[in-house]
């Protein structure tokens, strides 16, 4: 098990120390130490790509959390047709990313895309969705939010529905309005689920590839070239397997930091609970 887990990672770490092109077998590649990493850090394009990734991840995950949790709060009631509505909400998650990319590329099309056609019918100018670097970034954000908000929505909705009903009724009698109920009761009680959701989403967002590949292929310029895409292109187009591996490792390390962060958070909380237990037991004696 552990071997199966570690072998690819070890392989990749080893590869990141090589000057390796796809025509060579791995044994023939030249060992160049940490030169790949030094090259990367000195590479303005890589640093730019790194920041694009961070910016993309932060914006996208924030938006998805707000919209997903917000929708869950709004739709957490028994209205007729709710089951259908919920099913519709899950659909985006079920579509293959490549298809999502193609679909949005069509919708963002400058002349026949639905957005610009709509804008024009209202008398506005069309927007150069995929041709302008700012708009292109906004476009990939929209596509990703569209595809992944449902994931958060579903988890948040499940969390709202397992909230203790009577505690919410008690809050109502105690004088809380809808907003106060959400802020003071619902969100705090949902927090453990929301934190796990956030972590899962964060880990995932660093790996989006297909949608952006199809939508903008990283352009214009480097404006939408997130790390995963750059790794893919470094390996495919520039045939620099060693450098791609080094980049992968940097990405992996970033994810590790996140995962460890989550782990530490859990540990600290557990320790906190254990400490309270101990205090209470002492009280009871």
């Amino acid at each position, binding site marked *: 098990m552990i071997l199966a887990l570690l072998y690819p990672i070890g392989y990749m770490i080893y590869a990141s120390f090589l000057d390796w092109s796809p025509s060579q077998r791995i044994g023939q590649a030249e060992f160049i130490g940490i030169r790949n990493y030094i090259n990367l850090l000195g590479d303005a394009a890589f640093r730019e790509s790194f920041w694009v990734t961070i910016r993309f991840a932060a914006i996208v995950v924030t938006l998805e959390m707000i919209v997903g949790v917000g929708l869950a709060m709004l739709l957490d009631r028994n209205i007729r047709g709710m089951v259908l509505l919920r099913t519709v909400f899950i659909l985006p998650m079920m579509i293959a990313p490549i298809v999502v990319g193609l679909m949005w590329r069509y919708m963002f099309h400058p002349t026949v895309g639905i957005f610009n056609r709509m804008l024009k019918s209202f008398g506005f100018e069309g927007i150069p969705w995929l041709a302008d670097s700012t708009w292109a970034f906004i476009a990939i954000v929209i596509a990703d939010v569209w595809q992944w908000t449902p994931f958060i929505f579903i988890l948040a909705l499940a969390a709202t529905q397992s909230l*203790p009903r*009577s*505690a919410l*009724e*008690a*809050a*109502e*009698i*105690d*004088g*809380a*309005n809808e907003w*106060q109920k959400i802020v*003071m*009761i619902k969100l*705090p*009680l949902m927090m453990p689920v929301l934190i796990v959701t956030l972590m899962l989403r964060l880990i995932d967002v660093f790996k989006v590839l297909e949608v952006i590949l199809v939508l903008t292929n990283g352009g214009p310029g480097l404006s939408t070239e997130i790390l995963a895409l750059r790794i893919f292109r470094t390996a495919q187009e520039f045939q620099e397997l060693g450098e791609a591996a080094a980049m992968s490792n940097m990405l992996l390390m970033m994810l590790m930091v996140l995962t460890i962060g989550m782990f530490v958070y859990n540990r600290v909380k557990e320790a906190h609970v254990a400490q*309270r*237990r101990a205090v*209470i037991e002492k*009280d009871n004696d």
Partner: protein
Amino acid sequence: MPRIRLENLVKRYGDFEVLHGINLEMEENEFTVFVGPSGCGKTTTLRMIAGLETVSDGEIYIGDRPVSQLEPKARDLAMVFQDYALYPHMNVAKNMSFALRLQRRPRKEIDEKVGLVAEMLGLTKFLHRKPGELSGGQRQRVAMGRALARDAGTFLFDEPLSNLDAKLRCQMRAELAIMRQKVRKNMIYVTHDQIEAMTLGDRIVVMNGGYIQQQGTPEELFKQPANKFVAGFLGSPPMNFLGAKIQDLGGQVFVSGDGFEVALPEERASVALGHSASSVILGIRPSDLHFSPHAPDHEAIDLKVIVSEYIGAQSVLLCNCGAQKIEVELKSETPIALGETLRFAVNREAIHLFDSETEVAIG
């Protein structure tokens, strides 16, 4: 605090009517208990008063104000839930101060109030614990404290003791009775336990099947039950019921049946004779039957002991009266044998008669 009035209150779930026009008036500062078997609509009534269920028909008045369209928070109520409904993520102090914090009362006032209530309920040591770190009894107190801390005009309790074990329930019942002396507020208390109802209530409302069967003081209901349901529901061990006939035997009016024949006292006799049907149900509480070997025939019944349940100073005997079953109480030291036939004097003033069709009390 204002009095509460229910006017023709009806509740329907879809086509299914569970409350059929409840009319009730509760005086100021009265402790009213809704009691009845499970499923009779007590909780539904309480939740309608609280504003947690919509009113299908009729109106609820608090003071002179119709409130059925108001939100719960506009009704000035505090409620203790059956499952306590504490806020799991807040400690005891935060739980108790929740309503006050929402009202943006000054910090000092809140702390004082919480301190006072915690003191009264013996929760001072636990103010910083979360509900998950408390025992059932302590959680129950916190639920009580949360209601008390906020100075509402009316308190609603939905079976607050039903999740406690028997011993704790007894203890909390006594504490509630003491608390009740100190806090002069409207209280409406729902329970299926007739002992809780009898010990706590100023006024008891007995419900069954979505109807009010009878209301009044515990004593009124115990002594003058309006029908067989109320008679059988209140009191423990419960009242005995025997099929009987009213017979006028030369000046003396007897209520008689399989294995017994008891003369009615004069004032009961005329009413019983005035009743149209001669077939009735005789109700007699175990406490109104006294072991008395030499009682005269027309004031006694003879019972054959089948089972004796020893419960301390008193034993409860299950006996045969003809083919019918009847329960009596007896001092445990009385030497008796199973199968023996004993004579019990009937407290004839305490005889209850019910129509055998409608089960309504006669007289």
